[in-house]
């Protein structure tokens, strides 16, 4: 179905909907009667990003205040802030943050597994908080700081939790690992020295079907400078080159 078939909103009169100095995109003024869409597309990505984020500056900059901002269903230009960098792309409102990362931006570290927010494979941080990127619209992430697994290491230097994952062999097939590490990162940000109970709760949204939880818990303990129980696996020594 197309939205226009279901749109009973009477067209608004937009006698002055053209942005000064730019041609009004009349094709965008459909039966929905919303023209700010075209205004946004003429603004370019950064302006669109500001408007999407609902920033006050964008509202002040907007010459038109004749109705709500309606985006899509056609793709719109957006700017996302990912791992400290502004990244521009074009996507439609039904695009999840995960699809924007993986399909638009070729950042395939975050995994699509259940696609229902139940497994944690797609976990990223948004403003430091753990979210399932498969259940967040990309447009809802505009204006917020997104951190993905690609953003943890500094050059060749792994984040301490990544180091600990290596030392404690905290994965087998590795498919849950990016999400698991992001969940650990969020947990340690909020609780620098988590108890085992807090670790279990903090990682309760991340499923590892290989069952590497015990080693993951050990990695979190070590990354938070806490003693790892003696019945936990001894970290492998990766300094001698190893064998096999």
């Amino acid at each position, binding site marked *: 179905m197309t939205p226009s078939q279901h749109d009973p909103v009477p067209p608004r009169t937009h006698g002055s909907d053209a942005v000064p100095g730019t041609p009004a995109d009349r094709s965008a003024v459909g039966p929905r009667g919303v023209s700010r869409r075209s205004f946004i597309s003429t603004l370019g990505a950064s302006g669109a990003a500001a408007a999407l984020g609902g920033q006050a500056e964008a509202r002040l900059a907007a010459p038109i205040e004749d109705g*709500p901002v309606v985006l*899509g269903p056609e793709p719109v230009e957006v700017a996302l802030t990912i791992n400290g960098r502004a990244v521009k792309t074009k996507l439609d409102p039904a695009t999840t943050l995960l699809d924007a990362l993986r399909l638009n931006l070729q950042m395939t570290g975050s995994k699509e597994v259940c696609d229902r927010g139940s497994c944690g494979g797609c976990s990223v941080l948004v403003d430091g908080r753990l979210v399932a990127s498969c259940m967040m619209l990309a447009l809802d992430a505009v204006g917020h700081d997104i951190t993905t697994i690609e953003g943890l290491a500094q050059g060749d230097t792994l984040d301490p939790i990544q180091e600990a994952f290596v030392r404690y062999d905290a994965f087998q097939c590795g498919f849950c690992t990016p999400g698991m590490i992001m969940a650990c990162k969020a947990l340690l940000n909020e609780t620098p020295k988590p108890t085992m109970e807090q670790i279990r709760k903090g990682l309760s949204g991340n499923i590892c079907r290989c069952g590497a939880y015990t080693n993951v818990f050990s990695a979190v303990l070590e990354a938070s400078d806490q003693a790892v129980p003696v019945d936990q696996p001894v970290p492998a020594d990766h300094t001698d080159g190893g064998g096999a």
Partner: protein
Amino acid sequence: MNPFALLQADSVAEASAAAKDVRLSVLKAGGMDLLDLMKEGIAEPTQLVNLRTVRDPALRTIEAGRIGALATLADIARSDAVRASAPVIAKCAASAATPQVRNVATAGGNLLQRPRCWYFRNEQFNCLKKGGSTCYAVDGENRYHAVFGPGPCHIVHPSNLAVALLACDGVVSLAGGERATLPIAKLFHMPDRGIRDESNLEPGEVITSIAYSPAPVSGFFVVKERQSFDWPLTMAAVALKLDGRRIASARVCAGAVAPVPWSLPLVEKALQGVALDDEAALRAACAKSIDGAEPMRDNAYKLKLLPVAIRRAIADAAGAKEGQ
């Protein structure tokens, strides 16, 4: 998901007007449940009205006795004001779902999420809720379904938070319609009073906040199959007023047993005057919780769980009292 337009609401009034006027448009807060429904093909709105873009801070403010509708479950769980004034609410929020969900899901959205019945959630089953003529749970897999209520649909209410708020005499504040407030007790209806939806909100009515009565001696217990991320098999929320070591009055509500958050007035009455260490009297009162239950083929086990959940919620509440 089907393609849709996203209306970035600037105010509750704008959101309400859009939700009222536009056919097939749906209000979206955190979107956790809505996106799930859309991915499953259960909901196909052509316009989402985004409440996340409404910047009014009151919508996100949490204080003792009032929770903004856009406050997340994580916000509620970590709020000192809620933990002190109504521990049952904070605990319910903290126990729901996963960190990923709690960081995004809002109080208002949690109340208005659709039921988790697997026939409703499966596009292949045209059940009563979707305009069909059959409740597939009646002759089907009904171990997670309701043990109270006459049907014809046998969902259990999906929100734990609603049960805790009911125990604290919660009242939602509304905007965009005729009413300014609506008690949680009147927010939802049984399936025989409307099967296609669960809430009594009119189109365009938006929950802006939820007020509750202070319940410092309140507690919660949930029985799940897994202690990690799982839906409750049965849960209980109680709010007590104590006279020394005696229960002066009690509010007792159950979840995952009925199509609405379930009040248990018989238990409340039986608990009046009972001493917190009178185990026999407490158990006798809790046993009244299953009066009137009509279990289905596979869910009679809930009748064993419910009195236990209530008893443990009372213990949790008493513990909250002693922890002060």
